[in-house]
């Protein structure tokens, strides 16, 4: 619940202005952008996600560092479990790398 998870905005939906597909370490989920309405992210932007809501825009470097922090804190598994658990949209399978 207190995890801040970095994700990249992949897709916005014209009919649903507050919903976006984000990718976190290869996993794609829908998150809510409503709390960034004053500074809406665009496709390709990085955001920090709390409980399914994007809470701040960050740089790609900061996103990388935040993921490193989660790994160092031993919380990366928990974070991915949380991301997979977001039920706002259907889960997309991780892309083969």
């Amino acid at each position: 619940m207190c995890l801040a998870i970095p994700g990249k905005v992949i897709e916005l939906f014209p009919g649903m202005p507050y919903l976006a597909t984000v990718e976190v370490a290869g996993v794609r989920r829908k998150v809510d952008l409503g709390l960034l309405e004053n500074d809406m992210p665009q496709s390709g932007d990085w955001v920090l996600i709390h409980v399914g809501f994007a809470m701040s825009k960050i740089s790609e470097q900061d996103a990388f560092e935040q993921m490193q922090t989660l790994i160092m804190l031993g919380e990366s598994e928990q974070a991915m479990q949380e991301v997979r658990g977001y039920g706002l949209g259907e889960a997309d399978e991780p892309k083969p790398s």
Partner: protein
Amino acid sequence: MKFVDEFRDPVVINQTAEEIRRLADSGRHYRMMEVCGGHTHAIYRFGLKDILPENLELIHGPGCPVCVLPMGRIDDGLALAKDSNVIFAAFGDMMRVPGEQGSPLEHKARGMDVRIVYSPSDALKIAKANPDKHIMFFAIGFETTAPSTALTIMRAKAEGIHNFSVFCNHVTIIPAIRAILDSPDMRLDAFIGPGHVSTVIGCRPYEWIAADEHKPIVVSGFEPLDMLQSIVMLLRQLEAGEARVENQYKRVVPWEGNRAALKAMNGVFELRPYFEWRGLGFISQSALRIRDSYAEFDTEQRFSVPGVRVTDPKAAQCGEVLKGVLKPAQCKLFGKECTPEHPVGALMVSSEGSCAAYYTYEHRKAMASSLAWPA
């Protein structure tokens, strides 16, 4: 040293630790409180205490939402969910937290419909999928999660969803800091300010700590280097006799916070006159409740909540630990009756609680070395 081998930037970390040792006046004892439970966890996880000078003490603050929730609130929420028409939804962090009548997970084993959600909007989604049931979202958290709950309630109203309500346990960090500073047995020199709460509230709400209480506060990130740099910034202020609010975590925390998040929170929530904090007692204007304009989505306005009050066992000294008067291991129950597997007191409940963090990283280390064969 294990610490510097394992983590990034070992050279910079060493230089920063050296700077801390240089700045810390050896004739003085420093007491700094990290407010956020995430920082507490990181401090133990990274073994930061091992590289700080002995006269610099970190006091663990009240910023663990699971830890400060009074046990009776859990019993209240679960009592309402005994109705077979009600689905109880909560974050995974809540599932193992014991009420007097057991944890949500234990109630699930007894047949209650309990669902883990990772987002409040997922609880709303369950409501849409189960129109003949009532979905109660058991909301906890500081300003980091409260805006998401607020926006979910706004969405429920806009979409006309009537089988959804929120049992609101959201708390606010500033009154808790004030309560700690008002405590007569408390002596603190400075604060490491919470990182993620500050992405929402910004840095201005801390200004009174500097202006009125003359204590420096630095909003900090969560990496070892972030926290060490924050300690350097605090020591520099103390050395210069200054008290200011500084932001070490600028890459994430804007000085003004997140206006859209604050607007959502203010639109849906208002301050309760008072609220009970586990370990700290009643604190005025320290928690949020749902405004009358959203009464339909307020579990407490919609249903009759029993209002269970459970006092923690007297032997558990959570309040003293929470205020930094006692170290976790100085509590009579620590590691005996009270362990992370069977928590008696508030601070053993979550991995971000200071007793649980201390138990996981320090106590086990100490036990292991005391059992080891001599070399």
